[in-house]
């Protein structure tokens, strides 16, 4: 039996995150930038400063773990108006979005 299997998972996740994000083709990154501003913007505001959905500025998200944010985007939050986007955004897409949100989303 391997010791601490969860540790390996965590480490893998931790390493995978930035690598995945960097690997996304530039064209896709641009598509996603537009997608987030437009489609997510309906609820979160074109400037992502919040509306019916919460604020998604780097400041507002700074203490939130990336894993939680990724899960929220992929599967939504039951009981709230936040829908799950897994059918339209791959894991790599979502990781890139969260990474970008945490850094301050590009224009």
């Amino acid at each position, binding site marked *: 039996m391997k010791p601490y299997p969860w540790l390996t998972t965590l480490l893998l996740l931790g390493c995978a995150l930035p690598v995945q994000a960097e690997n996304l083709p530039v064209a896709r990154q641009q598509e996603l930038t537009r997608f987030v501003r437009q489609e997510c913007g309906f609820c979160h*505001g*074109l400037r992502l400063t919040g*509306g*019916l959905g919460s604020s998604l500025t780097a400041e507002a998200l700074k203490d939130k773990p990336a894993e939680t944010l990724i899960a929220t985007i992929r599967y939504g939050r039951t009981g709230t*108006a936040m829908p799950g986007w897994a059918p339209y955004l791959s894991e790599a897409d979502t990781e890139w979005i969260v990474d970008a949100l945490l850094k301050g989303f590009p224009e």
Partner: protein
Amino acid sequence: MTSRKVLLIFLACVVLVFPTFAQELRGTGDLGLIVERAKGSIQLIDTTKHTLLQRVEGLGDTSHASAVFSRDTRYAYVFGRDGGLTKVDLLTGKIVKRVLQSGNSIGGAISQDGRFIAAANYVPGGVKIFDSETLEQVADIPAYSDATQALSRVVGLEDSFGNRFAFSLFDAGEIWLADLSEDPRHPKLTQYKNIGNQPYDALVTPDGRWYVAGLYGEDGMAVLDLWHPEKGVRRVLREYGRGEQKLPVYKMPHLETWAASGNLVFIPGVGRHEVVLVDISTWQLVGRIPVAGQPVFVMSDPTGRRLWVNFAFPDYDTVQVIDVESRSIIHTLKPGKAVLHMEFTPRGEQVWISVRDANRVDIYDTTTFKKLGELPVDAPSGIFFSARANRFGL
């Protein structure tokens, strides 16, 4: 007098007099505006000639902007997402006045007598009332709920008769009525608690009698009879869709005053790809019409004969037309990606449709469905025609 002086006087006369002569006299009944959601600007338009008259810039964040009109239909009041309230002269294309009235706003309304503008705010949650002439603040109504001990975001702000405004508290699940008829500086408030979970938008029927709030957090709607506000808020349609799996909603639907015809109101299903028909006399569900996606706007043309429906992501390239009498879809259009809004000319012979990603507004004949023309507009969203000035709840 030196010739130089004569020339100067002549030039001054030209500058002063020319604009008056250059612009012929015209009415404003066929004017309107289109919001450019990404640019902080609006386009003024002429619905008779199908022309763009002029772009007006400097309106701040227009990503969810909406507008109401003064009762003489000369001025538009534009509510920006950033809390900006801008008064625009439709004839000169000038910004007459602009105030930053809150941090985050969602829309507004104008009082029955045209003297007051009300703005609904998310941050800080509440409603502010302004003098429509000067945009001076007349009253501030913080949406503080005792139940949640916090300010609530305000949605579904609508005007009705008796200089009253009705609105809903999204976070607190309440409906409030503000009566400005006696003392506009101290509106008389009536608060209805526990009206349901997460009211997301509301409509008033064209006669101003019924205020209907849609609920996101649970099934059904909340209805207030403005003829008999003392009777309180009634919950209706609680059985609608019970036990059915809800589909994800990628954009919140809107409730529109336009969605009423005769005895019926038409409501977008929430998490259901259908339009729901409700009989106003009984508040019973009388029909469900399956459509192409999650409806966003369900709008009845001014004759009440047909409904035009647009949809949320990913079906937002489509518009469907429903015949009210037969309750069937009689036409499907594909104007292109991201149809965000539709607006009928006052008597309904044309409909204007904004197609965001195509940077285009399409004009259709509502009888033949033929495209009559198109206009280049940068990322168009809301379209607002001046005839709205003469209706409740728009």
